C-alpha cells in the first residue's frame, strides 16, 4: 500500500471518529525472508499486512484500539472501541495533546525500488552464492537474506499528516568450520549491494583463521570489538538517553548533563538521516525528529524527549516518541557512534597483547545504573600479539561497565550499519584499553 492509500485510510478514520481528538497511525509492510542452514533453505517467507492504530481522546482521557481490517464497518467499530476505552481511563495529570502539522523530508535513498521489487529468486541467488563459499571453504553456513518495504502514515485531528516509505534489506551468515566459526553481515536500503559471495568469503575466512582455538585466562584485557560486536553493547545505552529514565533516576546520566562522562573521543548521536541508515524523519507522534548529539567528545549533552516528557521537564520536544501513550517513554531509535581517525588495522597494529572480537551473544544488563553488562563472545575471537592477529581464542564471558570502558577507548575510522532484525545502529570498531572477562569456555 502506497502513501496516498494510507493517507486516504487515515482520513477515513478521522472522518468517522466522534472523539474530541483522534490520531490514526497506518502502517503497511511487505517483507520476505529466505533463511538457510547447512546449504538448504528451511524458511522461505512472504508476508503482507496493513495495520491501523487509533488513539481517541475524550474529555481528556485516552483510549487506543488497533486492527488490520480497513473496510468502513471495521473502521466504525475501531473508532467506537477506542472511544469506549477512553471512557474508562482515568484522566491523567497532564492532558494529552496531539502534535500539529509539520513539514518533513525523508532522507535520500530511504526507499529503493529494487529492494521493494526483489523476488524470491534474487534472494535465493544471494543465498546460493553463500552456499558456494561454504562448500569451497569446507564449512557449513547458516543465515538469511531479507528484503522488505514498509510505510508509515500518522494523521490526527490537530492537522498532522506525515508519511514515510522505506525499504530494508540484509544478509548475514555464520560459517562453521570444525571447531571454529566466523560471521559477516550487510544491511542497507538497497538490495543491489547484497553480495553473497563476499559475505560468504569473509565469514569463511574468519572461521578458518580462528580454527584450533586456544584458551586464554579471563581477567582484564585490551580488546577490539568490530562493529557487529560493539553494536551489541551500544544498544544497551539507548534507554539511558531517555528523558524518562533520566528523570526517574535509572539512567547513569541522571543529574549529569554537562559533565564529562566518557573519554574525549566519544561522540554518540541520534541521527535518522545517517547515509548508512536513512529512516523516518518523524516520530510515532508525528513530530519531526531532531538530529541530536547525546554525548559530544565525552560530555553528556542532551536527552531525548517526546511531547509528554518535553512538557514535563520543560525541554524541547526532540521527536523521539513511541506510539502514545506508553510506559517506555521517549527512545533514541537511530544511534550513531562517530568514527575515529585510525583504520582498524592500525588499532590492531598498536596492540601489544589483546583480543579482537567479531560478535557477541546474549548481552544482558547486570546492573542498570552502573551500566554493567554481561555476555559472550562468538563467531571469531582472536588473540593479538605484537600488533598481529595470531590465532583463534575460545569464547569468553565478560562482566563490564560499558560507561567505564568508554572512558579510555579509540575508534576505527570506518562506520558500519549493524543490528539485524533486533536493533539498528551505526558504529565503528572500538578499542577498549580495559575490558574484563569473567570466565571462559572449552570452544
Amino acid at each position, binding site marked *: 500500500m502506497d502513501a496516498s492509500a494510507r493517507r486516504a485510510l487515515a482520513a477515513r478514520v478521522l472522518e468517522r471518529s466522534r472523539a474530541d481528538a483522534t490520531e490514526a497511525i497506518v502502517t503497511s509492510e511487505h517483507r*520476505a*525472508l*529466505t533463511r538457510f*542452514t*547447512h*546449504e*538448504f*533453505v*528451511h*524458511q*522461505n*517467507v*512472504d*508476508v*503482507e*499486512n*496493513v*495495520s491501523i492504530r487509533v488513539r481517541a481522546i475524550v474529555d481528556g482521557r*485516552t*483510549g487506543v*484500539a*488497533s*486492527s*488490520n481490517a480497513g473496510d468502513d464497518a471495521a473502521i466504525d467499530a475501531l473508532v467506537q472501541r477506542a472511544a*469506549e*476505552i477512553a471512557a474508562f*481511563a482515568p484522566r*491523567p*495529570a497532564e492532558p494529552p495533546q496531539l502534535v500539529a502539522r509539520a513539514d518533513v523530508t525523508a532522507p535520500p535513498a530511504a526507499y529503493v525500488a529494487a529492494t521493494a521489487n526483489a523476488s*524470491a*529468486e534474487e534472494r*535465493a*541467488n544471494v543465498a546460493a552464492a553463500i552456499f558456494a563459499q561454504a562448500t569451497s571453504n569446507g564449512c557449513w553456513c*547458516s543465515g*538469511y537474506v531479507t528484503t522488505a518495504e514498509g510505510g508509515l502514515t500518522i494523521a490526527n485531528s490537530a492537522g498532522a499528516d506525515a508519511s514515510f516509505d522505506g525499504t530494508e534489506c540484509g544478509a548475514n551468515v*555464520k560459517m*562453521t568450520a570444525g571447531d571454529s566459526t566466523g560471521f559477516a553481515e550487510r544491511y542497507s536500503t538497497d538490495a543491489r549491494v547484497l553480495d553473497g559471495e563476499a559475505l560468504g568469503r569473509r565469514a569463511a575466512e574468519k572461521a578458518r583463521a580462528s580454527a584450533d582455538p586456544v584458551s586464554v585466562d579471563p581477567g582484564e584485557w585490551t580488546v577490539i570489538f568490530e562493529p557487529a560486536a560493539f553494536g551489541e553493547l551500544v544498544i544497551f545505552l539507548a534507554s539511558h538517553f531517555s528523558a524518562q529514565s533520566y528523570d*526517574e*533516576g*535509572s539512567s547513569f546520566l541522571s543529574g549529569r548533563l554537562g559533565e564529562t562522562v566518557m573519554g574525549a573521543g566519544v561522540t554518540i548521536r541520534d541521527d535518522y538521516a545517517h547515509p548508512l541508515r536513512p529512516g523516518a524523519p518523524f516520530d510515532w507522534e508525528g513530530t519531526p525528529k531532531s538530529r541530536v548529539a547525546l554525548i559530544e567528545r565525552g560530555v553528556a549533552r542532551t536527552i531525548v524527549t517526546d511531547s509528554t516528557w518535553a512538557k514535563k521537564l520543560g525541554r524541547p520536544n526532540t521527536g523521539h516518541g513511541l506510539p502514545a*501513550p*506508553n*510506559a517506555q517513554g521517549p527512545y533514541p531509535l537511530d544511534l550513531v557512534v562517530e568514527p575515529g581517525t585510525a583504520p582498524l588495522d592500525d588499532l590492531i597494529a598498536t596492540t601489544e597483547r589483546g583480543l579482537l572480537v567479531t560478535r557477541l551473544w*546474549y548481552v*544482558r544488563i*547486570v*546492573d*542498570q545504573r552502573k551500566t554493567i553488562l*554481561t*555476555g*559472550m563472545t*562468538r563467531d571469531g575471537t582472536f588473540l593479538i600479539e605484537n600488533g598481529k592477529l595470531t590465532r583463534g581464542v575460545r*569464547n569468553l564471558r565478560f*562482566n563490564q561497565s560499558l560507561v567505564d570502558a568508554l572512558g579510555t577507548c579509540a575508534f576505527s575510522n570506518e562506520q558500519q550499519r549493524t543490528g539485524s*532484525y*533486533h536493533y539498528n545502529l551505526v558504529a565503528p570498531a572500538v578499542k577498549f584499553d580495559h575490558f*574484563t572477562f*569473567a*570466565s571462559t*569456555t572449552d570452544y
Partner: protein
Amino acid sequence: MEFSVHAERALDTALARGAAYADVRFERTRTERIEVRNGDVAALSDTRSEGFGLRALVDGAWGFAACARFDDASLDAAAARAVAMARAGAAAGIRRIGTIPSDAYVDHYVTPLERDPAGVPLGERVALLLDAERALHSAPSIAVGLAWLDLWRTEKEFYSSIGSRIAQTIYQSGSAISALAVGDGDAQIRMWPGDRGMYFGGGWEVIELAELRENAARIGEEAHQLLAAPQCPSGTMDVILGGSQMSLQIHESCGHAAELDRIMGWEANFSGTSFLDPAERGRLRYGSPIVTIEIDNTMPRGFATCGYDDEGTKCVRADIIRDGMLVGFESSRDTAAQIGSASTSCVRAESWEYVPMIRMCNLNLLPGDVPFEHLFDDVREGVYMEANRSWSIDDRRLNFQFGTQIGWEIKHGKRGRMLKNPTYGGVTPVFWNSCDAIADAASWFEWGTPNCGKGEPMQTGRTTQAAAPARFRNVAVGVGYGR
C-alpha cells in the same frame, strides 16, 4: 468452520501450482493490555488482527505466504507466492527435509475457563491495577511503580491438503506489578509474582490468582530495603533457587538446549546451537538422578496448552530428561523424522503472519520430595535467590550467568539477612548434576513466560516452565560483580 471455503480454495490453488502438500492456518486474535505507571494509565489498548498463513511443500522445500485479505484473488495470490517461494528454495538448496504428514484430524479445542475476561468490565480491570500500583509506593524511594495485565483470545482454524480440519479457541491471561527504588546512586527492582508475573492458559481467574493488591506494599518495601542491603558475597557456596528462578534456569539451560531445530543448526546464525546431540540420547547424564524434565502440552493451566500445534500435530506429553538422563527433544514433524522419532507437538507461530517453528512450550521440572523449608537444613553457607533480574547464556547453552532481584544469606541451615545483587554462574550439565534436592509438590507452580524470543524475525512465544525451589551444591556466586 468459518473459513472452510477460503481454505479449500487456497489449498486447491497451492496443489494446482505444484505443491505436494499444503496447509493453511486462519487466525483471529484479540490482545488487550492495560498498564498503569506512577498513577497514570500508560496503556489501555485493544488490538485485533486476522489473516492467514499458508505453507506449501515443493520438492521437499517449504514456502510460506501470509495475507490479511480473504477475497479469492488474495487467497490465490498467497498460495501462488508460497509455491514460488518453495520452488526457489528447492532450486538453491542441496538438501530436502520437508515431509508430508500421514495423520489428519477433524477436531476442536477450547481452553477451559472459570471467568471469561469479556465479562469483566473495563472499569474493574483498571481499578485493580490502579489500586495495586498505588500500594507499591509503600516507601519513599519508589521512583517507578508499574502494574499491568494482558489478555489474549485466539481463534484458529487449521486445514491441510490431506484432510485436517481443526478449530481452536485459546485463552491466555497474566498480570504483574513492579517497583523500582532509587537512592544513593543505586537502583533496585522488585516484581511480583516471580519476575515476569503470573501467566498461563485461562481467563480472568488467572489475574485474580496473582493477588496483586495483596502483595504490592510488601514488594515496594522490599525494593526499598534492597538499597541498604549488603552486597551478595562472592565465592563457591550452596545455592537455593526459588520457584520462578528455577523456571528461568530450566528455560535457558534445558528448554532452549533441547530444541531440535537449534540442535540441527537452524538457528545457528542468531540464537545459536546446542551442546545436546541426538546421538547421545539415552547416554548423556544431563543432571543428577532426581532431575526429570518433561514436555506436557496438555497440562491444565499451561501457557502453551492447546489441542494441536501449528502444523496440525495433536499435543502430547513427552520426556526430555528422565532421572537425569537425556531422552528426548522438543521437535517438529520434519526434525523428528531426521532422528527417527515423532513430533513432540512443539510447533507454534506467534500469529497468522509468522511461519510456524519449534518453540519451547510447556516444559516442566517434576517436583521432588523435600518440604521447601527443609531445603535449608544442611546448608552451612549459601544464598537463597529469588526472582530473575539478569540472564545470559552462551550460544551452545553451556556457560550461563544469572542474577536475581533479591537474595537471603543462609548460615548453618538458617535463612538470614537480605542481600542485594545476587548473581551465580556455571556450566549447564555440571550445574544440574549438583542438584541434590528439589522441593515437593506443595511449592511446585506453573510459571509462565509471555515473551520468549526466537527466530528471525523474532517471534514471541508463550511458555510454561513449572518448577519447585531446588538446592545446588558448590556454585560460583557473585560472578556478576567481579569475582
